[in-house]
């Protein structure tokens, strides 16, 4: 009893909910925040949970009524069957390579360009920025055919022979085209919020534009960079239509394609689909968990808050 209380007490203290050390309104707000966040997380995770329990139900039990929301006879057979037939490791690898390369390119170029747009009033600054944002308003679906033709013909540059069709490079190029404008724009807006006096101080400290940018401004732009990186990563991670058209084999196909393959034409085998979906979701979830501290610290650190 007493230990229970003390662990409860510890929990309360750890969550910053003890009225001893905190303002009562702060505690009240925190409580409300925890409650709301808890509710929200519960609601948005419920579908994932439902897919998960569907995936560990025996195939036949999936269609039981009433629906059981707690698995009674969990089984991994759906997973085993799927894994036997699917090179998921390859799809995951492709997704990872494509998404991370795209992210690196977009974040690098987007950050430096966004910074210049934010700080320097060079000729055409506004026009260029507007055209960058405007560029991304073209709906990509309208461009499937031209893109396919670019990628399936030997590239103009580099003296390479052979086309880029069904390579990760094709996807990376396509995705950077889509993501870069946004990266530039997000970073520009972010840098607008970083006080210019810090640039000046860096200059006084003997930094050239490059050095000041790299050593002072970049560390402070972490939240913006993190947001941009996540955006670029997830967009590439999730893209489907172009992956479908530009790739045709495991050497370049990504997870969304893998998932879509579970959809047979004429009936949906929900148990296996759910298992496949979980497997396809897993890299993302693991990725999220693994990088959570980077995501979180990226999104908060460097903050210019004074």
């Amino acid at each position: 009893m007493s230990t229970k209380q003390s662990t409860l007490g510890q929990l309360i203290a750890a969550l910053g909910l003890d009225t001893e050390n905190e303002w009562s309104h702060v505690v009240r707000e925190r409580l409300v925040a925890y409650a709301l966040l808890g509710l929200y997380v519960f609601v948005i995770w419920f579908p994932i949970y439902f897919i998960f329990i569907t995936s560990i139900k025996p195939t036949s039990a999936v269609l039981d009524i009433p629906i059981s929301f707690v698995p009674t006879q969990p089984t991994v057979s759906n997973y085993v069957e799927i894994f036997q037939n699917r090179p998921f490791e390859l799809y995951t690898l492709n997704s990872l390579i494509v998404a991370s390369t795209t992210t690196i390119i977009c974040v690098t170029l987007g950050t430096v360009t966004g910074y210049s747009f934010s700080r320097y009033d060079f000729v055409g600054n506004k026009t260029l920025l507007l055209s960058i944002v405007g560029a991304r308003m073209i709906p990509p679906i309208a461009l499937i055919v031209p893109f396919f033709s670019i990628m399936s013909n030997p590239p103009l540059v580099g003296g390479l022979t052979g086309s880029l069709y069904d390579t990760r490079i094709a996807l990376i190029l396509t995705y950077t085209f889509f993501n870069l404008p946004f990266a530039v724009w997000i970073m520009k807006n972010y840098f607008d919020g970083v006080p210019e006096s810090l640039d000046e101080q860096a200059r006084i400290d003997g930094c050239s534009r490059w050095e000041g940018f790299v050593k002072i401004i970049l560390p402070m732009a972490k939240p913006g960079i993190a947001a941009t990186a996540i955006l670029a990563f997830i967009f590439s991670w999730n893209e489907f239509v172009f992956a479908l058209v530009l790739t045709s084999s495991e050497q370049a196909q990504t997870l969304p394609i893998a998932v879509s393959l579970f959809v047979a034409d004429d009936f949906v085998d929900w148990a296996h689909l759910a298992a496949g979906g979980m497997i396809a979701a897993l890299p993302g979830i693991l990725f999220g968990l693994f990088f959570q501290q980077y995501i979180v610290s990226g999104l908060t650190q460097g903050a210019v808050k004074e």
Partner: protein
Amino acid sequence: GGNGSSDGESGSDGSGETTGTGTESMADSIVFYNAGSLKYDPGTEANIERFEDETGISVEVNEVPWNNLKTSLTTIWRNKDATVDAFNGPTWWLADFVASDWLEPLELGDSHMSNFPKNLQNLVTLDGKTYMAPEFGKWGTYLYDQTHFEEQGVSEAPQTWDEVVSKGQQLKTENTSPFAFTWSNKSVFTFKQFLYQAGGQLFNDSNEPVFVDGGMDVMDFFTKLRTQDLIPDGISSMGEGGAGDTFIAGQLASVESWTPLGARALDADGWGKDRLASAKPPKGPDSRATFQDTNGISVSAFSEKKRAAKKFAQFMTTTKSSKTNMKVEGNPAVIPSVYDSEEIQSQYPSWLLEDMKFNLEHAKSETYLAQPQVDDYLAEQITPALLGDKDPQKALETAQSNIERLYQDIGLL
């Protein structure tokens, strides 16, 4: 025929290979686009393995989700790209592909083609050339829940549309609807099947849409079913999976579904050979024809490995392959003789085989140009009509005039 070495000099496909002529040497690999995952096509998978073993030509299978296969192919061909050699798809794509010069005639020879029933041969032949080798059949089979029938005192499946209605009254219970259709979320397919049963067709020989009269029979039938509550609510959204699921859940007394549902039902909990039964489709005003949705293999006109691809198309559609496919997967064979073979007879109940064979021989279909858009014009009118939200006559007339205009537009009329 298991002897694949007859023309098996596996010449390497030289880099300077030219397209178009049949005199090229045999490539040692081809790219095959399969609709959906081979996981769900074990029959095809087994046949591909046999092909590779016997010819030494390796087949690179590219699984493309069904919904996107046509897009992928269209994109590739609009670029005159040689990425794909052969693919597997339904017969109703043929007309558009052929009209665009995207497919290569298969030159399968009469001996091969004569294995298939006449109606099917016609379907894959355009301007006298064969563009698709039929691989396996897809058509509706009337399945019913025998236990439920017995409980409601119905001893025999309905033989005609009228019986569907009359027996439906008996079969209806609180939890169970008497009747549903496999094609139900593709209302066009449903419509076509019943149109054929009513003796109608979509187009006449000079490409004019002519379905309004026959269509009205279909609409009348449906209105009866709907107003008398003999089909479930929301019928328009019940895809094959949905109808099948509902059937297995015991909430449908009978269903017109493509055959694998039979196999699924036999495996399901609480089902078995005693409970599941099949019958021939109920006869409409004209016939018991079902809708033909057969899949076959075609070869790309832009392929650089046409010889190997054609060989593949032929191999995959031999009697043996057809039998294998049916054995492994339960896909209905498109060659009547397969149903009589001993292996198959021992594997499936004879009543089922009898109905399947009947369907194969009586199925109907049409190939017509601008199929997706024609279907779209149809669907947008008949879906609300089927649901009772629109006057059927008016819906059909609108659809017909829209299609007429489309055909004028593209120069067919």
